């Protein structure tokens, strides 16, 4: 019985949220306010019992860490007292006279994490990524590779230039012709890709490597702020935009599936767990 009651609560809340798709309505408003209230209560309780109680309150007042006793004003006691004090200082802002002290915990927190973040970011997002991109452009062991490589470079270059030319020359003229040209470019690119993959495996490797290198070069160029995007930099930045757009489109398309899975899950909850309409 309790099971059915709670499933029904969940189902009604689920439907209330879906009613938002039609338009804003009292059911959605209620569900929205409910979830805000529940989660506020949830985090208040969890933060207190999981962080404040074991790490601050118990050591300071009950002189215990876990099951171990600690001395008053001992090293461990201070290690609980200092963060506790910092937490309290956050509230100094409500007292105008000492409001400025309220910035200390923020300073410590933000400063600490700023420092903490810098080096790993350098390591993981710059050096590692460079390393992953510092590829031998051609499969060095394979003599065929050099040639396929060259051919591939030409194809890619041709396709991208073609896109530029189309964009520039037809401009605001005939839209259909422009789109046709773009589609044609994509088809040529695809056909070239198929032919080359059939030629040799090294061809695939070197093509993909070239894509990685040119793509990274282009995207990084797009992010140059202190130079005008003209000439070579302008060209590279345009290549960068091409890669960005392909990347965005692909990621968008790639995500559709997981979002639909979520919906299937919820519909399954309604039809199966709640209504028992399907098995």
């Amino acid at each position, binding site marked *: 019985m309790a099971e059915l009651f709670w499933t029904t609560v969940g189902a009604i809340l689920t439907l209330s949220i879906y009613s*938002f798709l039609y338009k804003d309505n009292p059911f959605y408003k209620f569900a*929205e306010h409910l*979830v805000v209230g529940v989660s506020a209560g949830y985090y208040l309780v969890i933060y207190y019992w999981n962080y404040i109680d074991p790490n601050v309150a118990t050591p300071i007042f009950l002189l215990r860490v876990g099951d171990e006793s600690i001395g008053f004003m001992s090293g461990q006691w201070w290690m609980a007292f200092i963060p506790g004090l910092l937490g309290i200082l956050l509230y100094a802002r409500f007292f105008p006279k000492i409001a400025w002290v309220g910035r200390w915990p923020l300073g410590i927190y*933000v400063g600490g994490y700023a420092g903490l973040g810098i*080096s790993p970011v350098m390591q993981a997002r710059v*050096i590692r990524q*460079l390393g992953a991109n510092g590829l031998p*452009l051609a499969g060095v062991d394979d003599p065929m590779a050099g040639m396929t490589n060259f051919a591939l470079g030409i194809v890619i270059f041709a396709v991208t230039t073609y896109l530029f030319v189309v964009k520039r020359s037809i401009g605001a003229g005939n839209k259909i012709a422009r789109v046709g040209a773009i589609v044609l470019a994509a088809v040529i690119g695809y056909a070239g890709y198929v032919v080359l993959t059939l030629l040799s495996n090294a061809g695939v490797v070197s093509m993909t490597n070239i894509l990685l290198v040119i793509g990274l070069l282009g995207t990084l160029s797009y992010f140059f702020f202190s*130079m005008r*995007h003209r000439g070579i930099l302008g060209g590279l930045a345009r290549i960068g935009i091409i890669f960005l757009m392909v990347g965005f489109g692909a990621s968008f398309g790639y995500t559709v599936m997981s979002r639909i899975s979520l919906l299937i899950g919820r519909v399954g909850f309604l039809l199966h767990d709640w209504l028992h309409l399907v098995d």
Partner: protein
Amino acid sequence: MKLPGTACIAFLMLCACAANAQVDAVDVEEVLSMADARADSVPPAPPRDLSARDHIGDNDSGDRISVSWTLSPDDGGGEADVLGYLVMRSEAPDARGDTVGVVPAGTTRLVDDTAVPRTPYYYHVQAVDSVNLSEPATFGPVEGRSSFWQPRRTSVFVLMAVFFAMVITFTQLAQKGASLFIRRIPGLNAIEEAVGRATEMGRPVLYVPGIGEIDNIMTIASLTILSHVAKITARYETPLIVPTARAVVMSAAEEVVKEAYAEAGHPDAYNPDNIRYLSDAQFAFAAAVNGIMLREKPAANLYLGAFWAESLLLAETGFEAGAIQVAGTAMVSQLPFFVTACDFTLMGEELYAASAYLSREPKLMGSLKGSDWMKALSIALMAAGIIANIVGWTAFVAWFETQ
């Protein structure tokens, strides 16, 4: 009940787990039959030449000690029934102490990575056959020492130092009055236009600083831009609604907006009820922001900061509500959604550049210039890496393999 057999398997499994090694099926069978065949009552000879010393390696915080020995004569020779070695550690020479690990026969080395730095230890190693333990070999005292440098991260340090040097140099140049060019960032002008439009329509501006915690640099960048936006809204007395998902961000946003209103000379226009904490829970937050968009009808929605899956929920609802929308984030996975659903999007580094661009403060402009040089250096390094890979200059590549 064949106890020896069971014990033996348990031991082997222990070995396999401890050493993370793979057990050969044939050996197991053999040993099993051997142990079953005769009840072994002769303990194996202990291992010899035991020694232990501070382990020197990467990320050496002094918690590692490497222990080595020579095989027991019964391991591979003699009775040839040694299954492995049991390594124990104590703080006094005569105590046996705690088990550090178990390694399979034929192993002569073990790195203890659970030592407390600067504590003298004694190590005891015993050979084990299917039922018996040998006499222990003991060595000590030895202690783990910390090192002050992590060699495999030198390249990170060097590049970071170079980067910082560039940023600081350009910042100082800028302060001395060197004029630095910064290209136009399309999304940024859009922010001002959006706020302007909200003012014309007499409707509020919604500013969502993301759902990142304040330790997220995106959030800090967002607060900088918020300060700029608040100054504009203060000037026009347009209401500015800032919903937040983190209490600390909420309190920082309050300070930022209050200060901006005071600076713009309209401290009385500041409405504390418009800086709101909604929920730490991601989708509860999204639900509540959607509510704000539909009920308070902001004419301009600005999403700047760290966003996760809620990005499209916000942007689509905002679009439906007819607001002009500008987004900015460095969350790669969410950029596609902002790009498709918003009028303008600040991508990646543009978000960070925005704060410099808006303030036009030479100090901030200098750091942008530094970043650009670092990008150039990165491209050069990538090229060098490619060449190094082709010509086989492995030392160069290895230097960048950090840990």
